[in-house]
């Protein structure tokens, strides 16, 4: 049952987006998210929607996967949209007690909903087409200038990689320990909050103990292979910026320009 949780949603493939340099993907995604908030009216936001739709098509990932990633935030979308219904001017549509719904409010809530959904879709494109290792690699490379400030960038990236690597292992371990304690009659499904919290002790303690054991083993194995941190360490897969990356940067830049122009020439749609 725990194995149903999929962390790290990478879906292997060979699409244009899969082949892009992870650094470029990371930066572009970040820029796109910024531009979702730069887009001040419905038309400029639709530009970003077009961009994300294009990205989804290019990623070669089935639309169903994207819908799945949206399912998790549906509550937030509905909640914020409903709240925003009551803010805005324009013609009065409905009056519930002191609350008034006006046309402006309706447009506002649609706008906010599209914003949140586009935002999630952009990050979904990134995580679907980039493996966790590629992502940490990219982050290490992007953060490299920070070494000037004595920030141990390589060590941070290595910690992230190891953490990601051990998520499935620890899930499996948790599953095993849960089964073993259930076989001894541990009751995790009933009782009040306090009782349920107490029922976690027989699972958490063995899990901690085994995590420490694994950490020791891993440290030993890394030292046996002469790991001594990032200094002078070469990469097996070095990252390269290709024509594809430059091309996609240009396309995105065109969309950004459109967003700015639409913001300027169609201000205050509502």
């Amino acid at each position: 049952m725990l194995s149903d949780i999929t962390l790290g949603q990478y879906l292997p493939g060979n699409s244009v987006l899969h082949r892009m340099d992870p650094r470029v993907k990371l930066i572009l995604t970040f820029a796109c998210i910024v531009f979702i908030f730069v887009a001040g009216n419905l038309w400029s936001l639709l530009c970003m929607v077009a961009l994300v739709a294009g990205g989804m098509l290019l990623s070669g990932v089935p639309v169903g996967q994207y819908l799945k990633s949206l399912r998790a935030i549906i509550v937030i979308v509905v909640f914020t949209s409903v709240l925003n219904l009551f803010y805005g001017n324009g013609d009065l549509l409905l009056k519930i007690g002191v609350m008034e719904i006006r046309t402006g409010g309706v447009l506002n809530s649609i706008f906010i909903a599209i914003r949140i959904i586009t935002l999630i879709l952009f990050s979904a494109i990134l995580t679907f087409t980039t493996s966790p290792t590629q992502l940490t690699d990219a982050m290490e490379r992007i953060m490299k200038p920070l070494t000037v400030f004595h920030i141990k960038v390589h060590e941070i990236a290595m910690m992230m990689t190891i953490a990601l690597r051990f998520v499935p292992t620890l899930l499996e371990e948790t599953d095993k320990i849960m089964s073993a304690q259930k076989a001894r009659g541990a009751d995790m499904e009933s009782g009040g909050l306090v009782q349920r919290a107490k029922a976690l002790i027989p699972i958490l303690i063995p899990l901690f103990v085994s995590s420490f054991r694994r950490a020791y083993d891993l440290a030993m194995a890394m030292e046996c292979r002469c790991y001594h941190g990032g200094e002078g360490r070469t990469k097996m897969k070095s990252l390269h910026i290709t024509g594809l990356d430059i091309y996609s940067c240009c396309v995105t830049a065109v969309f950004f320009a459109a967003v700015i122009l639409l913001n300027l020439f169609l201000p205050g749609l509502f």
Partner: protein
Amino acid sequence: MPAVLETKNLTFIYGGNGPFRKTAVSDVNISIEKGEFIGVIGHTGSGKSTLIQQLNGLLRPTSGTILLNGKDIWAEPKKIRQVRFQVGMVFQYPEHQLFEETVLRDICFGPGNMGLAPEEIQRRAYEAADFVGLKRELLEKSPFELSGGEKRRVAIAGVIAMDPDVLILDEPTAGLDPHGRDVLLAQIQNYHQRRKNTIVLVSHSMEDIARVADRILVMNHGQAAMFDTTEKVFARGDELESMGLRVPQITKIMQILQRDGYPVGNGVLTMEQAIRQLAPLLKSRGCIHAQ
């Protein structure tokens, strides 16, 4: 003898209806009688673990039923914990499940969950500790201070203390040194003889199984390929080998001797039995001198 555990058309499929569905156990019909010592063998991925986890209600079968003393264990899903007290289960590497501050308290966890009186819990814990040969002075130590072999004994005692009707052990001797294996196996056998309860032992060691089991269940590709007395199963060496298994080495040697015309009996399973047959033979030919 009445059947204590019975499976009817037991099938378990992983992955629901998704693209990764895999049939781990398919249509298994077995009947285990009260007081039997059953050995379960099968290569990795043959469905052994999935099968035994269904027997105590940790996994719910996709289809088919499991009868414990004649009653369907899933008739009342809310009472599945009662089934787990009656069918004790020792997992592989059970030492990883220890969590309490002292060994004694860890052994008491199972019986404590049964809602027994404190004196009864203590009595059972001490008794279980004796069965696996844990010294009294160890009981007040932290389980994390013990050696690997001792930890495993503590974990097994934790299940024995629930006094189950059926005790399932999944490779209890894996990773122990030869002496540790022999001692643990002897303790399990001793426990079985004293308590007269039913034991299901999963093992990759044919020698271990040959020593202790009355009957053997052979799992292959999720199906019960054989379920017969130990002698009869190990007499089918060729079939076992085609399933990635083998017979105990001494059984194989005796089979070869018999094939080559030496007057030795069939179905020899242990070294002791072999010596009993071979010594007189060698003496009569003057190869060794009478002692």
